[in-house]
């Protein structure tokens, strides 16, 4: 099934439909955050600090009197933006490494995969902390950390797809017709290997949102006053007992988004019938 058709048919399943609606809503909020938000994300009003949810402030305010709803809308832009860009870069790099390793075989394969497997052997959070130790805290370092932390997964998956496809008769026929390596790899192998890697990338975006939030909560990701979902909670933890909504709502935003990504991704895997191909690698 073509990926476009699959995206639609996944959105019509009982699991996929609510998830798709939530995801469209979150993306909409991220894009139009500055128009939808009733207040500026950094507008302080100390007279209105730590207010509970009300009509004026739908989700309450934080320790500086900033409107939590507005900050969560802007947070969608940052958290989603960082996760999507970094996973995009990670998928692209993983595809390049995996495709070359799988197609070339031999020592090139062993060398590339040895590098890739080094990150595969350790939890993503540890790899992220190593990179942040080198690059220093910040949103850019977070993006690099996510890109490197998840790359092994995509490289291994791409490599397994390429190796499986390499033995197909139509590839042999293409070789017989005198096609060059670049042509075979770029025109025939990579396009056919792409779908499972892209779907794995989509699922990993959920994990990346969680990793970004975790680093933000540690104070190692987005820096104040930027309202990433994790960084917001980092600032709010001091007032947690006084104003628990500062912890509850940003976390809920993460939870809803991540669960929606996983549910929709799962429906998509079924629609494309690629569950077995995803297990390779």
């Amino acid at each position, binding site marked *: 099934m073509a990926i476009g058709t699959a995206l639609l048919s996944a959105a019509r399943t009982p699991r996929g439909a609510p998830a798709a609606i939530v995801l469209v809503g979150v993306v909409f909020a991220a894009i139009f955050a500055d128009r939808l938000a009733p207040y500026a994300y950094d507008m302080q009003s100390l007279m209105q600090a730590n207010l509970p949810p009300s009509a004026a402030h739908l989700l309450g305010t934080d320790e500086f009197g900033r409107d939590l709803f507005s900050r969560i809308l802007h947070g969608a832009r940052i958290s989603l933006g960082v996760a999507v860009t970094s996973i995009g870069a990670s998928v692209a790099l993983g595809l390049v490494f995996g495709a070359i390793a799988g197609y070339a075989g031999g020592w090139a394969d062993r060398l590339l995969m*040895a590098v890739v497997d*080094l990150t595969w*052997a*350790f*939890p993503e*959070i*540890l790899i992220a*902390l*190593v990179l*942040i*130790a*080198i690059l*220093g*805290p910040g949103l850019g370092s977070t993006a690099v950390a996510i890109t490197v932390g998840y790359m092994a997964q995509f490289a291994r998956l791409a490599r397994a797809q390429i190796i499986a496809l390499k033995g197909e008769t139509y590839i042999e026929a293409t070789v017989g017709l005198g096609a060059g390596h670049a042509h075979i790899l770029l025109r025939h192998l990579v396009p056919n290997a792409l779908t499972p890697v892209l779907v794995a990338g989509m699922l990993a975006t*959920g994990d990346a949102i*969680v990793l970004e*939030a*975790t680093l933000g*909560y*540690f*104070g*190692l990701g987005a820096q104040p006053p930027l309202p990433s979902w*994790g960084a917001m*909670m980092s600032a709010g*933890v001091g007032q*947690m*007992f006084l104003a*628990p909504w500062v*912890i*509850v709502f940003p*976390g809920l935003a*993460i*939870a809803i988004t*991540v*669960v929606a990504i*996983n549910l929709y991704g799962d429906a998509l895997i079924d629609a494309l019938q690629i569950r077995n191909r995803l297990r390779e690698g």
Partner: protein
Amino acid sequence: MLGYFVRRLIMLLPVFLAMSAIVFLIVHLVPGDPIDHMLQIGASAERRQELAAKFGLDRPLVVQYALWLKAALTGDLGEAIILKQPVVDLILANLPYSLALGLSALLFSTVVGVSVGAAAAYFAGSWFDRVVMAGILMGSMLPSFWLGLLMILIFAVELGLFPVSGARSWDALVLPVLTVGIGGVALIARVTRAAFVEVAQQDFVTLLHAKGLTRRRIFFRHLVRHALMPVVTILGLKVGWILGGAVTVEYVFARPGLGSLLITSLGQRDYPVVQGCLLMLGMGVMLGTLVGDLAQAAMDPRVRDRMS
């Protein structure tokens, strides 16, 4: 079995060297000269050379790495810049707390994960199966630091059942273990359930039914043995991830431990401590994976043979 153990150790050596080299390089990859961090403002050029010689920073990088690794392996990880103590002392003081949390979480994940997974398989398709499996799966997707904070709000603040933070008594371990454990429980329950369902479809099970054995007897006497193999495999692969979960959760509960130490030191750019913690945590993950592999090989001779 001994041969397998030795082969696994040899395979881990390059990973260890690469991991430790990267940890070593942190100080050199950070923008700026490491000596600049140690020198006081206005220090003379002689003082700079003196310090460079003292820390061996005037020698080739490979030599520096070898010396650093040798010192690290003999228990000398340098001195903390902010805390002004030997890094080894800091690590030794924090290690027991991390071990207690990591191992309790591992035990909790395994026991609860296997029980829930087996129960879900026994009642496959029932509301229990669907609701419980979906619930823990959803719990495992959430950021663990947020789950930790919610547990503090609910169980420690509202209900007053457990301490909010710290590690002064045993019950301070309950909420952190639950927080770290949910991911492990989800993983193990899923694998256990799938393994039971798969084994139940094999021919020998049909035969057991035909022999007239009760469903319960088949389940507990025959299925369990076969179904636990994949669980040991996944535990071996993911033990590092379960232990790694402790890194984030310690910080949330303000518990002492390697994770808390690492995150605090990262914020303060106290690089010797950062290096020491990362080296220890990296070795911890590798050791966990090794133990997992050995457990699997001890249970399944095919794993041992595959390696030779």
